């Protein structure tokens, strides 16, 4: 979240960064959720992710998130201790703008992929602060979104 104008994302203007931290296996920002939280109709080029009241951390900014609260010397970003927060979100992928069959032998993944439109509505709350994204969500806010049916690692063959 940033104090700059809508469309901006300058690290120097960031005031909140909500994420679930890297897990003990180094999996990046992934958290198990109920199966019903995700609905996918790949043939119809649609998917939806809905989660309510997820416990996350607010690391203030991406630099503090990735350095686990150390901040950065350059650009100067002060270290910030994370605080707990809850977020709720509803993300929808809808409609194909492009399609691709990919088989990437160097990264060992393959599958069918769609570039799609997408929208998000989300809410955050923590002591002293809450945030509500614009409703209804603006489809033009989507910069790039991808939906895929893939295999990687040992399932790549």
């Amino acid at each position: 979240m940033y104090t700059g104008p809508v469309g901006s994302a300058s690290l120097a203007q960031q005031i909140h960064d909500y994420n679930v931290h890297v897990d003990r296996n180094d999996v990046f920002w992934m958290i198990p959720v109920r199966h019903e939280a995700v609905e996918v109709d790949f043939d119809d080029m649609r998917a939806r992710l809905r989660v309510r009241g997820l416990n996350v951390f607010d690391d203030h900014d991406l630099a503090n998130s990735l350095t686990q609260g150390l901040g950065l010397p350059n650009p100067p970003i002060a270290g910030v201790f994370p605080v707990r927060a809850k977020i709720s979100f509803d993300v929808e992928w809808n409609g194909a703008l492009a399609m691709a069959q990919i088989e990437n032998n160097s990264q060992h993944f393959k599958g069918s992929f769609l570039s799609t439109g997408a929208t998000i509505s989300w809410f955050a709350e923590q002591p002293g602060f809450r945030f509500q994204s614009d409703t209804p969500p603006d489809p033009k806010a989507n910069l790039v979104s991808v939906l895929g049916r893939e295999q990687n690692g040992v399932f790549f063959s």
Partner: protein
Amino acid sequence: MNEQNSVSWKNLQQKWVSRRSLIRGAAGTALGAGLLRPELLYADDDDGDSERADCLGPNPIPGGVTALKPFGIFIHHNPLNPAAPLANISDPSQITDFEGFVGLTHIRGGGTGTDTETGVSTRLAFQADMGFSQGKFIGTDGRQHRGTFAFV
């Protein structure tokens, strides 16, 4: 990475380990260890059994990107690039040994932030890099599981 940056990164890593220990210790005490990293509550064995105690979750993809250059913090994630053709994307999954559906978004929008103590509201911008993975995976226990994960 040049030598100067390597030195900086080395110093950062040393501080990082200390700070991480501090944060984890403090958070585990003040916030509850369960908040720091919840266990894999919603993944089942492939046969639907609940024998999941040994599975500490999936493994990360081997690849990814180096963030916050020049400090070089490697993350097992391939951010979407709006300028890149779809056919050239890197693996959008954060989980390796995975077969299933993945979704990723990169959205910038706006909303309203409110100071709940004063009631003052402010127009704010946001960037959301979020997604999901749903399917089967080989867990850290070497067994096949099914799970649904949000990328937050």
